[in-house]
């Protein structure tokens, strides 16, 4: 049965609540008058979406409600929802005004809707494009978005437009990206940037000159691509034809075309051939570049190159110094422990197995090798990478690079990237630099806030006091018990009897079988014993609540639990990590490293546990997402995330009540999808109200007596991992 449309009053009542009109003074009636004329299903759709947008901003929701009907005339419900969510995303990242303009600029959104259906969006294609770029030989290139329309490179990063929508088929639009990457890679790889651009452009019309250069150089580069990537070259030709057809472009034949083509398509054509041809042609009418060719930014590339060349020379020569002194040490025949301080000037030689030049694959495949005093030197991977990059820049290893650096010749600090100290974050002006960004789930909006939480991993200073000693002393008897029960877990080998295959004969089974045979029955083949050994492969992270509310007893009990647990986990050999979490607002989610997976449990770790101090609030979702990311780098058959907490997720801003619970639940669900088991141990007596919703009915324990925590935590851990 079709439901009746809502009346004006019903809609006004609904919107009044959404817009909180008594505070915002928004006139719900205006929107309601438009919505009342719709069918019930459209009314429901608009009102539901308005409520979701209102969870972000009331004014934005009002604008949405005013424009929703017009939007529904032009787009289907799915696209309208995408439009509304695009506005809320804009609100998150840029603020109210840009979000409003998304809503007001509906026509533009409708116009570009086809782009969204058939265009290629860089952000979506990156997971494929990046490995593609890395697979092309040479320097490992990065990919970034450019705000302009044309792609270009600075020799380290390939900048591509946010979306391409020239063609009607998404496959072709994706191909533009792919061809752009290969074309820009060819510029870097085949020496476009090896010429002094200042000299080239030092003329009356530098723009024209650059255009001319670009046109000719493109001919040469495409020949290189034809040779190296013939499949892609064919695709490029198809793209060209389609573009010419679509834009009704004419191919322009350049004067002296035959000669130029002959020169630039030769197998050994180099950048100097392009320059040579440049002089031959004057006033050519340069055709605009094809869709994938992008533009040249010689200034940008020059600046990046100069910085890199200087840095790589220093690193390479220092690496040679290390290799040389190692080599001399190994060659020393006497037993004297002589110091091999290198004089500057130890010279290496290049050994070329093949006589091909200008090919960086040589380094990777071991064709270019270095000799020192007649001996071949084994090159570590980072030196090989440096050599590859140097060859990309120069086409060879310049002779002056082959002298090992003298003592104190370079100050590497100059080249080290400036690393920000995360502890200084609030003293400076940068808030999001160097931090990791995580999404957060807004249940009202039924959508993520993108890159919403700013998380930093901070060091926790060790505190060498008597806490650890006291704890171990205080819980001496408990520890002994725990050790015993954990040791039982370790020796989990079981002797399986009556097996078809096994290491030894099961005498009991044999006697029985013999009896069977004598009495005329068939003899069983289950006559062996087999030792069944179970190797534990558990990785566990303990996430410890460091919120202000743990001050006092709870904090003490948490620390004691961790000390005891860490002592007994050692017995099992499980890998474990401990992190403390706290923070204030989404801008400042702080994760304290107490023990990472790689660290050994030692006195310093104990001292760090001792220094776990109550801090601020408990914004849990972001930390769970971070832990999921950490777990994804670990190989283990059982991954366990144990949270020690004293209450509900809570933060200074809106992360309260249902919002916090729902985000945490969503984060736990994401972790679950990645194969991580989550468990929560809490001392909040009210936790039974919300923990089953977040963790599931069987995945939490509420401990009534704080003093029991140390015992319980170890006990729960034992239960969980067996």
């Amino acid at each position, binding site marked *: 049965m079709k439901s009746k449309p809502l009346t004006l009053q019903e809609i006004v009542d609904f919107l009044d609540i959404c817009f909180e009109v008594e505070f915002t003074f928004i006139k719900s009636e205006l929107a309601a008058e438009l919505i009342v004329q719709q069918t019930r299903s459209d009314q429901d759709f608009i009102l539901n979406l308005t409520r979701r947008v209102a969870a972000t901003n009331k004014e934005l929701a009002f604008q949405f409600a005013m424009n929703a009907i017009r939007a529904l005339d032009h787009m289907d419900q799915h696209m309208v929802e995408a439009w509304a969510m695009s506005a809320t995303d804009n609100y998150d990242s840029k603020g109210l005004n840009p979000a409003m303009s998304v809503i007001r600029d509906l026509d533009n959104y409708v116009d570009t809707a086809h782009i969204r259906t058939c265009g290629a969006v860089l952000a979506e294609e990156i*997971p*494929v*494009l*990046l*490995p*593609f770029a*890395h*697979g*092309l*030989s040479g320097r*490992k290139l990065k990919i970034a978005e450019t705000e302009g329309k044309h792609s270009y490179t600075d020799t380290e990063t390939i900048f591509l437009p946010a979306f391409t929508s020239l063609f009607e088929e998404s496959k072709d639009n994706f191909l533009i990206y*792919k061809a752009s990457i*290969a074309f820009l890679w060819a510029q870097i790889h085949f020496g476009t940037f090896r010429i002094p651009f200042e000299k080239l452009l030092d003329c009356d019309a530098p723009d024209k000159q650059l255009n001319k250069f670009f046109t000719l150089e493109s001919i040469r580069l495409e020949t290189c691509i034809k040779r*190296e*990537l*013939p*499949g*892609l070259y064919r*695709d490029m030709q198809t793209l060209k034809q389609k573009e010419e057809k679509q834009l009704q472009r004419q191919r322009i034949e350049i004067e002296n075309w035959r000669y130029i083509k002959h020169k630039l398509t030769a197998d050994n054509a180099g950048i100097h051939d392009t320059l040579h041809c440049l002089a031959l042609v004057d006033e050519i009418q340069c055709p605009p570049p094809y869709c994938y060719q992008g533009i040249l930014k010689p200034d940008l590339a020059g600046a990046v190159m100069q910085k890199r060349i200087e840095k790589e020379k220093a690193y390479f020569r220092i690496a040679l110094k290390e290799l040389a002194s190692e080599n001399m040490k190994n060659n020393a025949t006497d037993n004297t422990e002589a110091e091999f301080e290198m004089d500057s000037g130890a010279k290496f030689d290049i050994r070329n*197995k*093949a006589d091909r030049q200008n090919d960086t*694959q040589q380094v*990777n*495949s*071991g*064709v270019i090798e270095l000799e020192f005093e007649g001996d071949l030197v084994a090159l570590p991977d980072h030196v090989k990478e440096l050599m590859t990059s140097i060859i990309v820049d120069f086409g060879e290893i310049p002779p002056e690079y082959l002298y090992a650096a003298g003592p104190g010749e370079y100050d590497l600090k100059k080249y080290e990237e400036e690393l920000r100290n995360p502890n200084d974050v609030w003293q400076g002006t940068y808030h999001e630099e160097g931090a990791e960004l995580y999404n957060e789930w807004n249940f009202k909006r039924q959508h993520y806030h993108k890159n919403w939480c700013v998380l930093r991993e901070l060091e926790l200073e060790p505190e060498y006091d008597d806490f650890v000693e006291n704890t171990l002393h205080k819980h001496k008897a408990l520890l002994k018990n725990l050790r015993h029960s954990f040791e039982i877990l370790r020796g989990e080998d079981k002797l399986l009897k009556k097996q078809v295959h*096994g*290491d*030894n*004969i099961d005498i009991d089974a*044999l006697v029985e079988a*013999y009896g069977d*045979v004598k009495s005329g029955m068939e003899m069983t083949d289950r*006559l062996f014993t087999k*030792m069944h*050994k179970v*190797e534990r*492969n558990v990785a566990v992270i303990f996430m410890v609540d460091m919120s202000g509310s743990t001050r006092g007893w709870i904090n003490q009990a948490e620390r004691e639990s961790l000390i005891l647990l860490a002592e007994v986990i050692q017995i099992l050999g499980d*890998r474990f990590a401990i992190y403390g979490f706290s923070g204030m607002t989404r801008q400042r989610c702080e994760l304290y490293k107490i023990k990472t997976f790689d660290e050994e449990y030692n006195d310093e770790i104990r001292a760090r546990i001792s220094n776990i101090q109550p801090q601020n609030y408990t914004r849990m979702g972001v930390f769970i997402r971070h832990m999921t990311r950490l777990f994804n780098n670990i*190989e283990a058959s059982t991954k366990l995330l144990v949270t020690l907490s004293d209450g509900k997720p809570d933060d200074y801003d809106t992360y309260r009540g249902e919002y916090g619970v729902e985000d945490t639940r969503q984060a736990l669900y994401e972790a679950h999808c990645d194969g991580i088991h989550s468990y929560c141990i809490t001392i909040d007596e009210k936790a039974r109200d919300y923990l089953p919703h977040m963790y599931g009915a069987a995945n939490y324990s509420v401990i009534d007596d704080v003093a029991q925590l140390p015992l319980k935590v170890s006990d729960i851990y034992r239960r969980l991992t067996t």
Partner: protein
Amino acid sequence: MQSKSFKPEEYYIEDEPYYQPIGDEIAIFEAAYNQKLPVLLKGPTGCGKTRFMEHMAWRLQRPLITVSCHDDLTASDLVGRFLISGGETVWVDGPLARSVRHGAICYLDEVVEARKDTTVVIHPLADDRRVLPMEKIGELIEATPEFCLAISYNPGYQSVMKDLKQSTRQRFVALEFDYPDAALETEIIMTETGIDIATANQLVKFAHMTRDLKGSGLDEGASTRLLVHAAKLIHENIPPVTACTTAISQALTDDADMLVAMNELSSSLF
């Protein structure tokens, strides 16, 4: 047609297995063999370790007994066990004991896959004692001079769980293997499969592309063995891009994006 069956210790490789040396590994292996030293082959999967062993077995004219190690492999699987036959127990030698008795080359492939307590049984064989204690029958077999022990492992897998114990690795002469350089690899593919040089060259280029992706999404790049597989398919008129997908990309990863990226790379090359 019925295939022939042999006891492993009686099976001698008659035709020379094709092996293209990368360095002086043949000379070193022969020297180690003459000096009764056990050998450890290190190298990524599919770079020719097993083929090298076959080649050496042919060269030295010894039977080759290969044991592919796995995490369920017990010491009994190597040394031997009692079986029951007609109401009596009968001792049956395992592959290691057979090799020791008959002077064969025993090759434990991917030895890190075996449990650490299993690997310990090879210790007395791998030092100057060269004996195999067989506790269950209270015997000790002394290896004949022709016996040789070789193990292999892939350092690429190195994790806490899968590493060779120092007490094991320090008994062996280690030979490091890697993928051959481009020219050699092309030659290997052509000899093994009979495809033309142009296709072989492109296949090797594709292999280098995947090896460059090691660490940025792939755990391992394409091995020479995979290239040979792809080349064999191409030889049977499968289109090169399809051959690369089925024989190489799909073998290397299950990640959907990575597969697409690798297909884009192979379709760029062919």
